[in-house]
């Protein structure tokens, strides 16, 4: 029997691999990165119980467990294509073609940009890049940075950079244009922040969730939002300023910011310069589903899940036989949800191979995903459950269409 193949050694891929190997099957995990863990590697935050969620340790634990269970892990191995031939999935890497009857895609997420004049200058990087450089490789992305884009991910990473002794001059908005329409609108940003109030130890967002129950209060809140921002972990969060340009001769020297109206329009004459040697762009995550796309999987665009996601059911099965998905490829959520989804995908694969002996465990694992989701510390999208329901509806429609 061929090995089960998993593409992606992040939390979803590794937990699926452990589940499958512990059930006595052979598993190969392929990842293009040099370390196992995926985006989990960079994560570092204090949980409500006072414990630190340390992505490096969590990744190491998953990796050790996988190795102990007999999982084979191939790092530094990019997959360029997958293709089904004669009921067998072919997985193409630079040096070899691997084949399997059961293939799990756990390729995670990619970052969307917020284009700003000057954003191609060296020293401008995605906020995730700064996180990895700081926490994983332990090199400062710079001495003093500006983070563009105010959201859950950027505020969490701002705190991590601060923890490593890096000065963050400000977290602020991008100048509004067609691309940055939502991220550049103070009211929209304020709205999305109200859902992460528990993350802010300062009065800033808490004030929001208590006072801003209705649109009028929100508008008042943003109108009277202090021009120089409020501080969170001693970092000014500026919802009434926007970066209009990143400047520098051959690399970043600073940003030009301007005051903006509550609707996001730049107020002329308010431009000022902030010196910085790096800039982080925080445009949010979207599911990285390119392999599912080249395989011919149907896709649906679901805003609440972060973009186009491959069609799948609660068992993490795609409509293509032998193709499974788990983790952020199925929608943007935290690492703990990804781990739970990995277990379900793993059990679904085992169940398919051993002729349905895992039904009970599989159903329990689906419930466990739901519980993990309910307990999640970080909600990337407040309506993620609505998004999951939409996807399930699409799945049911698809199944009906196939049967009839």
């Amino acid at each position: 029997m061929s090995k089960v193949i998993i593409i992606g050694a992040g939390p979803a891929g590794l937990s699926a691999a452990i589940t499958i190997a512990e059930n006595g099957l052979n598993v190969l995990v392929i990842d293009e990165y040099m370390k196992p863990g995926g985006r989990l590697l960079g994560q570092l935050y204090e949980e409500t119980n006072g414990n630190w969620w340390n992505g490096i340790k969590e990744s190491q634990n998953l990796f050790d467990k996988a190795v102990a269970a007999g999982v084979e892990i191939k790092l530094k191995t990019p997959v360029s294509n997958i293709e089904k031939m004669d009921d067998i999935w072919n997985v193409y890497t630079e040096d070899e073609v691997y084949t399997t009857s059961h293939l799990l895609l756990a390729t995670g997420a990619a970052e969307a940009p917020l284009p700003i004049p000057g954003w191609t200058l060296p020293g401008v990087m995605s906020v995730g890049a700064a996180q990895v450089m700081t926490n994983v490789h332990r090199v400062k992305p710079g001495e003093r940075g500006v983070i563009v884009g105010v959201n859950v991910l950027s505020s969490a990473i701002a705190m991590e950079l601060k923890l490593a002794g890096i000065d963050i001059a400000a977290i602020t908005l991008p100048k509004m244009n067609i691309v940055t329409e939502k991220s550049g609108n103070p009211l929209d940003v304020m709205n999305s922040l109200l859902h992460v109030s528990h993350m802010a130890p300062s009065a800033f967002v808490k004030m929001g969730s208590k006072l801003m129950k209705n649109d009028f209060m929100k508008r008042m809140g943003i109108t009277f939002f202090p021009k120089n921002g409020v501080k969170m972990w001693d970092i000014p969060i500026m919802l009434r300023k926007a970066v209009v340009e990143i400047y520098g001769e051959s690399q970043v020297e600073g940003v030009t910011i301007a005051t903006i109206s509550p609707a996001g329009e730049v107020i002329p004459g308010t431009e000022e310069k902030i010196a910085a040697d790096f800039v982080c762009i925080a445009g949010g995550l979207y599911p990285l589903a390119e392999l599912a796309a080249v395989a011919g999987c149907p896709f649906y665009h679901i805003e609440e899940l972060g973009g186009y996601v491959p069609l799948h059911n609660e068992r993490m099965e795609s409509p293509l036989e032998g193709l499974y998905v788990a983790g952020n490829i199925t929608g943007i959520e935290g690492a703990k949800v990804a781990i739970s989804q990995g277990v379900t995908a793993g059990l679904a694969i085992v169940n398919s191979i051993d002729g349905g002996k895992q039904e009970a465990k599989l159903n329990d694992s689906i419930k466990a995903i739901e519980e993990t989701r309910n307990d999640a510390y970080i909600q990337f999208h407040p309506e993620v459950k609505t998004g999951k329901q939409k996807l399930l509806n699409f799945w049911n429609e698809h199944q009906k269409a196939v049967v009839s």
Partner: protein
Amino acid sequence: MTKRIIHHPVLDQIDDTDTVSFTFDNKKYKALRDEPIAAALLANGIRTLRNHEETGTPRGIYCNIGHCFECRVTVDGKQGVRACLTPIQEGMDVTSGEKLLTSVRDWRANNE
């Protein structure tokens, strides 16, 4: 190497004693063994990894996890290597990408 975060309030201290030598555009630098080329260069204060093939604008790391290909460099003669995904090894010869001739485009711009 002051750009390194040796001590961290939560994460373990890193070992900065196991070093290797490499060259970037023929200049010699030191790195920590197995760290990615991109991290080694940044630790040495180097942000510009290449110049855009057509316009020559300077580029550095952007996504740092292999998605954007902005950090592609030439390593021991092999082109298009992602500096963010490639562990540095003793004696590695890393060179940045330079602006290429775009003769056809330039000719068209002047003659059409």
